[in-house]
């Protein structure tokens, strides 16, 4: 799918993606010549179709994780389906400069279903580590979600 500014005969460029949480998606595109912005609004079924392809509108912000689509989209996954080796646990920082998790952040993470939790935890930890953040807090999680486009996590 591409967008063309008919007046300028120019391909419009992706600007921003928003997932309001009701299954819909909004993506804005801007004409590089005249600056006109249009929004593409998809209904839940159309959004789901894009998700089912395992691609991200606006481009990938984190590397594709193993079984990413399965872990994000399957609703009948076993709680104990996965184990994540070598992941630091608890509040203390792990080896290799891994960030620690505040109690509040751990509580929030505990609300993520087990089936996908390990993957989510790794993404947040990588985000913090790459930015030199020593402790992951709910505020850090919010920032990461916004920056990385992790609206569904």
């Amino acid at each position, binding site marked *: 799918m591409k967008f063309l500014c008919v007046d300028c005969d120019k391909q419009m*460029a992706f600007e921003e993606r928003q997932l309001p949480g009701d299954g819909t998606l909004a993506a804005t595109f801007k004409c590089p010549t005249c600056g006109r912005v249009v929004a593409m609004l998809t209904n839940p079924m159309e959004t789901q179709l894009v998700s089912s392809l395992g691609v991200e509108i606006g481009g990938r912000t984190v590397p594709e994780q193993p079984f990413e689509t399965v872990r994000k989209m*399957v609703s009948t996954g076993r709680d104990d389906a996965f184990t994540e080796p070598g992941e630091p646990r608890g509040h203390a920082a792990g080896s290799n400069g891994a960030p620690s998790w505040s109690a509040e952040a751990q509580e929030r993470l505990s609300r993520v279903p087990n089936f996908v939790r390990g993957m989510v935890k790794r993404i947040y930890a990588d985000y913090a580590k790459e930015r030199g953040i020593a402790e992951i807090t709910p505020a850090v999680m919010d920032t990461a979600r916004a920056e990385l486009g992790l609206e569904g996590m």
Partner: protein
Amino acid sequence: MPPIRTYHDLTDADRSGLPEQIGAQRKRVAERLAGVGRVIAVMSGKGGVGKSYVTAHLARALARSGRAVGVLDADLNGPTIPRLLEIPRAPLTAHREHIEPLTGLDGVRCISMAMLLEDGAPLAFKGPSAESFVWRGAMEASALRELLSDVAWGALDALLLDLPPGMQRYVELCDILGAPPAVLTVTIPTPESRDAVRRAMRAAVDRGSQLLGIIENMTGQGFAGTAGEDLAREFSVPVLARIPWHPTPDTWNELGARL
């Protein structure tokens, strides 16, 4: 208004890079399977002919003969391979870039949706339930792609893919692999099975798959017919084995030796 340029006329770099994302998915599959000697799809156009049973026992026979074998249970909605290989229930180890397969009887490595789903639960997806037929097929194809791209099999002589009845999963597999896999066909002796399996074999030929041969299952009592012979003659392929109702390990060893 002048003619509007078409999709293919617009070639500016797109930040979404959807074609590049799809290309990266295909590349990941190819890289993961680079260490696999042969990818073999076990298929049939007919349900209930024993594809999974044959797949599991053939994999075990190949493993007993010293070959490194994996089984990918591509029957996402009715996975049975872990039970047939007597794989103990255990979590899958999810590393940063791959998932480890589990190991069953005779050292056969395996991945299956059965390892991921709650006991007795169907494969269900988050998302709008209305008109789910629009996206469900794509979601299952993505799941199949991830089973292919994300499992670190290590070096394998053969990866057997146990396909569900029908042709849809085979077509998805061809698209994901980028080339058609070799195909082993399973039938029972009856003319009804023959007619359904014929369609599947025709589809495989049309896609360019190499037909390795036919395995006629459940022979000797109960089912009358010559489906194996008929299909072998029609497609100029061998009947690799006729599996009786109560096969011995030698039955499977002989089949493994013929592949």
